[in-house]
Each structure stands twice: as C-alpha cells, then as structure tokens.
C-alpha cells in the first residue's frame, strides 16, 4: 500500500498560442511562483523538483538543466520525466511518489511546453524509422482512423462530438488561464470549421499551446500542517501499451489501458458507480470523440451510450458529473503540462479554489492522462484520507 501524500498548492501560467514574452525557464517560473504563493511556501521550502516536458518539440536536449533554476531546483534533486502525452500525469504521479517515499517532505512538479518554438506535427511524426515513419500521420491522422472505427461501431454523431467542443470552450471562459475561450461557440461552428481529416474538424481537435503548470505535494504529516484542505492522492495507476498503431485493435472501442487503469483505481478507492460517486473529472481529451470514448472506458456509461451522456448534459457544469470545468485539453494544450494541468484543476476543485469554474462541494475528483497511441494514467484525488 502506497504511503500518503497530498497536493497542497497549484499554479499555472496564462496559456496561449505563443508566449513570446517569456522564455522556457521564465515560463516555468511563472507557474512556480503562483504555486508557491498558493501553498504559502518559499522556494527554500521545496525539497525536490520533478519537471515534465517533451524535449524534442522545442529541440532542447535536456531542458531541465536550464529550467531547474526557474523551478526552485538549484542544488536540489531535480530531474525530468517524459512519456509523450502522459508526461504531465507521469510527473504528477512522480511528485506523489517522491512525497510518499520518506526521502522528501515537499515536492514541486512542473510541466511545461512551448509548442510555438517547434514544429509539433513534424516532431510527432518522428516515429520508428523502419515501420512507422513513412505512414506516420501524427495525432490528427491516427485519430481520424480510430474515430471512424468508433463511429461505425457506436453510432455517435458529429453533432454529439461537436457538443464536447462547445462544452469545453464555453467552460474555458470560466478559466482565466485557458488558451481557447469561446463564449459564443455553437455546434454548427464546429461542424463548419475546416475538415482536417475526416471526420475531425479543426474545432474537434485540441490546440497547441505555450504554457506551464505546477503542483506542490507534501508528505502526510507535512500536508496536515501546511494545508487547510489537502487534496490527497487515493489512487495512481499507469498502463502503457504496444508501440505500433496497427497492433492496437479497435483502439478507441476497447481502450484497454484506460479501462484497466480506471477499474484498478476505482477498486482501490471503493468506487462502484463513478458517474455518481465522483464529484468532478478532469480528463485528457485530445479530440472531441475521444472524450466520448473515454466516458465508456471510464465506466461513466455503458458502451454505446456516450452520445446520450453528452446529449443529456450529464457532463456539463450543471450535470451529474461535470467533466473538464477547466475547458480541458481541447482548450489548453502545452503537452508536457497538459497532464499536470488536469491534476492541478482537480486539486483546485478539492481545495475549493476553482473560482468561476468551481463545482460545489467537491470531495472526490478523477484525473486522467492520455498519450502515445493508447497510454493511460488515472489518478483519484480526495478531500478525505
């Protein structure tokens, strides 16, 4: 049984398509300063630092070497974890393990990415040179294939997917840090936006953003001392899968990594009916259709009923289980930070500091991470230990 640790502070930058006003290290620092202020701590109170970022996107070999100073890492244990899209949740879990290990009391996790300084689609196409690279199509192309399969099997409609986009960008208006805030967005705007790769329209897809997000973890004893309402980590489960897309049969339909990670996490916490027992979910939805597929894998609804869930508004701010009050990855996506943002937003909801995006009385929050073709992370945070 893993020892206990909690998130006691969060901070994030303003996320945008380009943050030309700061360099990578300054971007990191912007999030760190806010997280320290949120936890009412000073840089010297931090014992260890975990950074997460996909080094190839910006072409920095070991960006942690440069950014450590911006992250209060000087002369401390500080290193970088990166696992594709799940980098942020890998880092969030690493922060938890560090604080639970007995070696460190307070641990800072910072995810960051400056997509504007690289060519993300080109970077994502740098796959296995023997088998994958000549058919590599980065995120949009590989999702188009899997989504077509998903639509054929489940019968979800483009309108239902578009509703996910509308929900995300409208929720983002309540989040002062979000990149894409679209108060007026409608379903027909999504359907009429450029077709990127059938059936994915531009507004179905997440953006690439510049941004950073920081979490502060504390060991159990320290968390009780430092925080009036720690967000305790109750479960942290990772599942990785095959490297080649052709080996993943019916990827979105089965999504066995997310399904297994969620089932394991629910079991650890004793959740039987996630739709009713969770108070909020911050899930990593790179594309609208994925959010629908994740509803099924996460057990929010039986297979084939994800479209109904969104039609009935169950996952809206006013619904039974608000999903992504922050606006999600569809609104903000600095890859190395995206999973950290999910975790921070879930913790924020438990801390009761969600401002206009606060869901009332959150006790249990779900976090997911998604990356590569089908890697999944699931964390459950709770106000109760």
């Amino acid at each position: 049984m893993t020892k206990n640790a909690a998130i006691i502070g969060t901070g994030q930058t303003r996320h945008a398509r380009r943050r030309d006003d700061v360099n990578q290290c300054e971007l990191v620092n912007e999030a760190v300063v806010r997280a320290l202020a949120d936890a009412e701590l000073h840089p010297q109170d931090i014992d260890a630092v975990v950074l997460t970022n996909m080094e190839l996107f910006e072409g920095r070999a070991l960006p942690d070497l440069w950014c450590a100073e911006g992250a209060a890492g000087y002369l401390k244990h500080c290193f970088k974890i990166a696992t594709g899209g799940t980098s942020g949740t890998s880092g969030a879990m690493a922060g938890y393990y560090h604080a639970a290990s007995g070696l460190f009391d307070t641990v800072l996790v910072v995810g960051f990415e400056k997509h504007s300084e690289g060519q993300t689609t080109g970077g994502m196409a740098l796959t296995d040179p023997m088998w994958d690279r000549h058919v590599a199509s980065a995120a949009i192309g590989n999702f188009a294939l899997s989504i077509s399969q998903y639509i054929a099997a489940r019968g979800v409609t483009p309108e239902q997917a578009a509703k996910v986009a509308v929900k995300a960008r409208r929720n983002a208006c309540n989040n002062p840090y979000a990149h894409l805030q679209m108060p007026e967005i409608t379903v027909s705007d999504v359907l009429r936006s450029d077709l990127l790769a059938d059936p994915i329209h531009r507004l179905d897809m997440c953006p690439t953003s510049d941004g950073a997000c920081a979490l502060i973890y504390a060991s159990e004893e320290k968390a009780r001392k430092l925080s009036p309402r720690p967000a305790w980590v109750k479960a942290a489960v990772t599942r990785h899968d095959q490297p080649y897309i052709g080996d993943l049969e019916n990827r979105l339909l089965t999504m066995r990594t997310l399904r297994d990670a969620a089932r394991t996490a629910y079991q650890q916490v004793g959740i039987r009916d996630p739709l009713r027992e969770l108070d909020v979910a911050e899930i990593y939805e790179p594309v609208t259709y994925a959010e629908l597929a994740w509803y099924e894998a996460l057990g929010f609804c039986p297979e084939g009923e994800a479209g109904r869930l969104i039609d009935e508004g169950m996952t809206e701010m006013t619904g039974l289980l608000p999903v992504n009050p922050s606006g999600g990855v569809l609104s903000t996506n600095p890859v190395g930070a995206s999973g950290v943002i999910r975790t921070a937003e879930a913790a924020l909801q438990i801390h009761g500091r969600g401002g206009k995006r606060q869901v009332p009385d959150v006790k249990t929050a779900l976090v997911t991470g998604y990356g590569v073709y089908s890697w999944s992370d699931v964390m459950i945070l709770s106000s109760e230990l």
Partner: protein
Amino acid sequence: MQKVAIIGVAQTKYEAAKTGQNIPEMVSGVVRDALRDAGITIQQIDNVVTASVDLWDGKTASNVYLTEVAGAVMKPEARVAGDGLLAASYAHLQILAGAYNTALVVAHCKGSEGAQMALTNWMFDPVYQQTLGLDYLSAAALQACCYLDTYGISPEQCARVVVKNRRNARRNPLAQAPAELTVEDVLNSRLLADPIHELDAAPVSDGACALILASEETARGRSPHPVWIRGVGSSVDAHYLGDRELADCQALTVAAQKAYRMAGLRDPRQELDLAEVSEAFSYQELLWTEGLGLCPRGQGGQLVEEGITARDGTLPVNPSGGMLAGNPLFVAGLTRLAEATLQVRGEAGERQIRNAQTALAHGTQGPGGQAHAVMIVGA
C-alpha cells in the same frame, strides 16, 4: 524505512557502433539477461523505469518502442529523460513509497546514430550559451582549464587517469576500449580543445544496461545475491557556466553528502571499498573524487599519482574502466551502478576488487557536470 535491493544486473558489450542491432533489440537483450540474473520472470515486474533522451534517439517519446521488450504492456512505465542513475533512484523511491515491489530499470543510447556535438550544444539555453557554440567538449575544456589552473593539477595527472582506466578495462570483457597506454600516448594524442586531448575524452559509444530492484520482502530469501541500496543523493547546479564555481562541483558535494548521511558513512574514503564514477573526460575523475569528498579540494591529482585509485590501491576508482573505456551518455550512470553491484556481489570477474562490501556509483548529466547523482550500495 523500507529497504530496497538490486537483485539483477545486465549490460550489453559497449561498442563504437552496434550496427547489428536496433535499439529495441539492444534493450531486449539486457532485459532478458537481467531477469535471468535475478531469477524472476517479466510477469513478476511491477514497474518499469526507462532512461533515454528523444533527441539522441531521433524519436518522439523514445520509450515508446521499448514497451514490448521491457515488458511494459499494460503496466506502469516512466521515462527519465536523462542519466540512468536518476532512473534507478526514481525506481528506488517508488518502492520506498510502497507503490511497487519490483522494478526494471533500463537505460539505452546509441551515440553512433547522432551528432554528439550538435546534440550537446542543444543542452544549453538557446538565448545566451547555445548561440556561443558551446557543447560538451568546449564546456569541459573551460572547466578543465579552470580546475587545472585553480589547483595546479597537471595534464600528466589527467593522463594518468586515462592510462589507469583503459588498463582496468582490459579486465572487463564488456568494455569498448581496453588499451595499454602511456602518459605520453595521451599527451601526444590530437588536441581536441585545450587541455583535452583525444585520449582524455570518452569515446562515442552504443549500449544498454538494465537493473532489477526489489523491496526487502521480495528480495529476501528469493534473491541469491541481493545488494542493498544504502544511500542516494542528487543535486543540480546553476545552468550558466559563469554562475558556477567550475573547479569545485558543488552539486556533487551536496549529492554525495546526502547519500553518505543516508548510508551512515562518516568517512567515505575509509568506508568505501571502491567507486565507479562517470568521467566523460579524464580531468573529471580527479574533480569528481574531490567533489565526492574522497580527498581534499585540489588533491585529486595526487590521488591518481600515488596509486590510491588504482585497482590495487586503497580506494580503487573505476575498476571497470569507466566512461573513458566507453559507455554511452545516459547509460553511463546505470553502468556505474551495475558495476558497483557486481563488485559487492563478488562477481566482477577479473576486475573484482577483493572483499568489496561497500561501493559508490556516480552519474552525471549536463555540461561540465551540472547535475550529479550518487548511490551507495552494500552487501
């Protein structure tokens, strides 16, 4: 506190260019051998921690192609984007936290497939230092000048490190560059960047290394040769070379002191039976031994001159041959830990140091040793 053991170790032979194997093949071999060494199956591994850097592999998420060969399908895996010793220390603390009972740690790199100077240039911040054209070699040369000048260390003393390590490598069947050299050979080799000669620098190398870690409960009784992780410490220094005291490697001192404290070592020079340090350049072995507190500042040169760090000395350093005999970046730190483990097990073959009970493994990353990790292992 929970105790963690190293129960399995495997390394590839390190070579200038492993053209016969791609990366997953290289990794698959060491994973298989490490499992065999530990006497367990891949199903008994709870958690995988890999170490590699995307720019060296030329792939996004360079761990992706390892999921099958490292047995990480439907399991937890995380990639440490840096030195393998940091990956081992991450796996170690995950076990301390109670998250897992066993972990496979694997580091790989094919130095032969990338342009080392360009890649290490990209380690520098893009605003001030990268544009100056700094890379691992030029940063090391600046540090070497600073170190030699501050403490009166001579190029001959640095050359002695090369002679010692390449000679030690002759006893290590996995070493890439065993050789019988003289100090003159080193000093007469091509000057790369003053004061670093070609033979003062580690060769470009390909290879992989894997370790298996287990909680005390899992290791006891099951492992024929558990080696215990007694202390861990790591630390990162300032990034800008001008902000650092290059001749003193403060981050290493911080990391080492932390590891010694945790291991309960009061006099490491006396209590350690050997040290495996990551010396990408000859002067670094001298500087790192100082940073590790194995001798007073400025006396690293005497240490090698007096034969103290020779394999028959009182504190052998790099009986494996070290990085100077060829270990890839990012693998090197894990190789040091594998070698330290073999020594404590008494299974280091011809390179065995007699009665080795306590050993130190050191890893570093970043130009001029910006970040350091230290691990103490014992019987």
